[in-house]
C-alpha cells in the first residue's frame, strides 16, 4: 500500500516539468482556460502511451529503444534514435536552465553562474544516487507545486465559468485560430513529452517490474498522471486569473510563479519555488538518463542504475558527456524559456517515432502473451496514433506561419 501511494505521489510530482510550467502559464495568461481540454486530452494520451510501454517493459523486460531497434531495424531505427535524442537533449537543456532560473529567483545570482553548478549536481545524482531515492525525493518535493492549486482556490475564480470555458471550443476575440492551434500543439507536446515514456519504461526495467507489478504500474499512471495534469491546469488557471485582465504575457519563470505570490504571499512563493527546483531537477535527471537509455538500448550496451557504474561504463560515459553538452549549450546565453518553447513543439514532432513501435509490440503475443492489448487499449491506441500523427505533421508548419505564436 505504501509503495502504491509513494508511486502515485512521485508520479504527480514528476509529471510537471519546465515545459508544463512555461507552456501552461503562457497559454493561461493569453487564452484563459479555453485550451484546457488539450491538457486533459494530452494527459489521457500520455496515460495510454505510458501504460502500454510500462506493460511491455514489465512483461518482456524490454524498454522503448530495444523495441524501436527490434521492430524498425537499424536504418529507420537510427533516424528515430537521432530525432528522439535531439528532442530529449533539447528538453534536458531546458530543464537544467529551469533549475538555474528557479535558483536565480531565490538567490538573485545570475543564472549563468548557477548553470555549471546545476550541471554538476545533475551529473552527481546520475552517477551516485540510487534510482529509487532520486525518484522519490525529487518527486515528493515536486508536490510543492500544489501551491498553484491553493493559489487558484485563493484567487476565487468563478468555477462554473472556468469549466464552461474548458468545455467549449472558443478563443479570445483578438487571437487568430492558427495561433490557438499552435499553442494547442505546444500544450499537447508539453503533456506528452517523449522522454517521459523512455524514462517510465526504462525505469520499469530498473525497478525489475514483472507481470505481477502491472496493477501498481497502472495505479501510478491512471491516478498519478491525471493529478499531475490537474496541477498543469491549476498553473494555467491561476495565470489566467492574474495575467488575463492585464493583457500581459509570460516570458520568464518569475512570471510563472507570480500568481502564487499574488494569492499566497511570500510563504506561498517559497513553497512554489521549492516545487520549481524539485520538478525541473527531477525532470533534468530523467532527461539525462533518457539520453543514456536510448543510445545504450539501441546499441545493446549495458545500461541502468540497477548495476554498478563500472558495469555500465559506456552508459555512464554518455551521461557525463550529455550533461557537459547541455551545460555548454546553456552557457552560450541562449534563453532557456525559448529552448523550452522549442522543446515542447519538437516533442510533438518526434512522438509518433516511438509511439508506433510500442503500439505494435504491445499487440504482439510473442512478447506479451496474455497481456497483449485489449479492445480498450487498442481503440484508444489507434485513436491517439492518428491524433499524434496529425499533431506531428502540423507542428512545424504552424510554428512557421504563426512565427512561434507571436
Amino acid at each position, binding site marked *: 500500500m505504501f509503495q502504491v501511494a509513494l508511486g502515485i505521489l512521485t508520479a504527480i510530482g514528476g509529471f510537471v516539468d519546465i515545459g508544463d510550467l512555461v507552456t501552461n502559464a503562457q497559454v493561461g495568461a493569453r487564452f484563459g482556460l479555453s485550451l484546457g481540454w488539450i491538457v486533459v486530452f494530452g494527459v489521457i494520451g500520455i496515460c495510454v502511451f505510458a501504460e502500454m510501454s510500462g506493460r511491455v517493459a514489465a512483461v*518482456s523486460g524490454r524498454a522503448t529503444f530495444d523495441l524501436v531497434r527490434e521492430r524498425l531495424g537499424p536504418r529507420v531505427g537510427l533516424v528515430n534514435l537521432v530525432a528522439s535524442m535531439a528532442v530529449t537533449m533539447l528538453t534536458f537543456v531546458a530543464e537544467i536552465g529551469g533549475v538555474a532560473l528557479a535558483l536565480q529567483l531565490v538567490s538573485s545570482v545570475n543564472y549563468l553562474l548557477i548553470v555549471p553548478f546545476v550541471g554538476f549536481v545533475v551529473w552527481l545524482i546520475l552517477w551516485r544516487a540510487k534510482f529509487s531515492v532520486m525518484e522519490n525525493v525529487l518527486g515528493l518535493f515536486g508536490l510543492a507545486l500544489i501551491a498553484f492549486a491553493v493559489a487558484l482556490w485563493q484567487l476565487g475564480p468563478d468555477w462554473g465559468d472556468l469549466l464552461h470555458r474548458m468545455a467549449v471550443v472558443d478563443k479570445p476575440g483578438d487571437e487568430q485560430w492558427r495561433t490557438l492551434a499552435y499553442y494547442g500543439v505546444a500544450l499537447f507536446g508539453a503533456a506528452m513529452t517523449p522522454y517521459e515514456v523512455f524514462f517510465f519504461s526504462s525505469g520499469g526495467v530498473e525497478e525489475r517490474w514483472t507481470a505481477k507489478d502491472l496493477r501498481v504500474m497502472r495505479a501510478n499512471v491512471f491516478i498519478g498522471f491525471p493529478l499531475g495534469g490537474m496541477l498543469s491546469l491549476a498553473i494555467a488557471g491561476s495565470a489566467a486569473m492574474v495575467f488575463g485582465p492585464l493583457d500581459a504575457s509570460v516570458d520568464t519563470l518569475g512570471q510563472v510563479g507570480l500568481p502564487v505570490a499574488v494569492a499566497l504571499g511570500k510563504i506561498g512563493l517559497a513553497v512554489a519555488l521549492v516545487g520549481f527546483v524539485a520538478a525541473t531537477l527531477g525532470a533534468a535527471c530523467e532527461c539525462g538518463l533518457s539520453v543514456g537509455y536510448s543510445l*545504450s538500448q539501441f*546499441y*545493446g550496451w549495458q545500461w541502468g542504475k540497477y548495476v554498478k557504474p563500472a558495469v555500465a561504463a559506456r552508459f555512464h560515459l554518455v551521461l557525463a558527456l550529455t550533461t557537459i553538452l547541455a551545460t555548454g549549450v546553456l552557457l552560450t546565453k541562449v534563453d532557456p524559456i525559448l529552448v523550452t518553447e522549442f522543446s515542447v513543439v519538437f516533442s510533438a514532432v518526434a512522438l509518433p517515432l516511438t509511439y508506433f513501435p510500442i503500439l505494435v509490440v504491445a499487440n504482439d503475443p510473442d512478447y506479451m*502473451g496474455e497481456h497483449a492489448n485489449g479492445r480498450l487499449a487498442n481503440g484508444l491506441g489507434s485513436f491517439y496514433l492518428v491524433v499524434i500523427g496529425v499533431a506531428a505533421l502540423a507542428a512545424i508548419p504552424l510554428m512557421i506561419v504563426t512565427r512561434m505564436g507571436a
Partner: protein
Amino acid sequence: MGERDRLAGALDAVLHLLDRQVVDVEGRLVCKVDDVELTVFEDGVLGVTGLLSGPAALVPRFAHDGLGRRLHDYYRRLGGPQLDHDDPYRIDLELVERLGSGVELNVRREGVLVPQGERGRRLNDLLQMPVQDLAGVQLGGVLDVRLEPETQEPGRRIRVVGLVVGRGRPGSYFGYDRRPDMGPWLVRNVVRRLHRHSAYAALDDLDQLDWNAGVIRVDPARLQELEPA
C-alpha cells in the same frame, strides 16, 4: 520475459532473432544481434552457426547501394591499417541457452565476443539479394528468412528452410503476416495491404541462390501462401 524458447520451434530470423538484446548468464547486457552467421554445412544444408555483433556487422546492414555503400566505405576508411576493422564479433550458437524476448547466453559476458576471423555468410547478404523470376524480372526482395531446428543427428542445427519474398524492407511486416488476428485493426489492415504481394518460397523450391552474383531466382508458380511460423 516470455515463457517459451523460440529456438525450440520454427521461427523467423528477422522478426524473432535479428536486432534482439543479448544477455549473459547473470542477466548483464552484452550486445545486440547485429547480424546472424550462416554456414553451408558439408551435406549442403544452410544453417545458423553464430550471432554477429559490432559495427563491422551493423554498418553493412544500412544498405548495399547508394548511401549505405558509401557509409560502409567511410567505415572502412576509418579503420585504415587495422586488419580486423571489418571483422565483426561473433558468439557461437553453442553459447545460446534460449531465445525469449532477448537472446540468453549460458556464459558470463567477459570475453564472450571474439573476432569472427574468416568471413562467413551472413543473414544480411540474403536480405539484400533481389528476388527474380526465371526471366530475370524483379519479384521483390527477401523480407524474412524462415528457420527450423533440426534435432536428429548430426546434433542440434538450426537450418534455413525458406524465404518470405515481397516488396518493402526486411522486417516491415511487424509480425502481422503471422497473426491475422493481431491488433490494432487500423495498423493490421494498412500493413497487410502494403504487403498483399508477399509470398513464401521454400528453400528447396528456389531455382538459384547465387551468393557471388547476389541474386535469387524462383519460378513464381512455386511461391506459396505465407503461413505463420
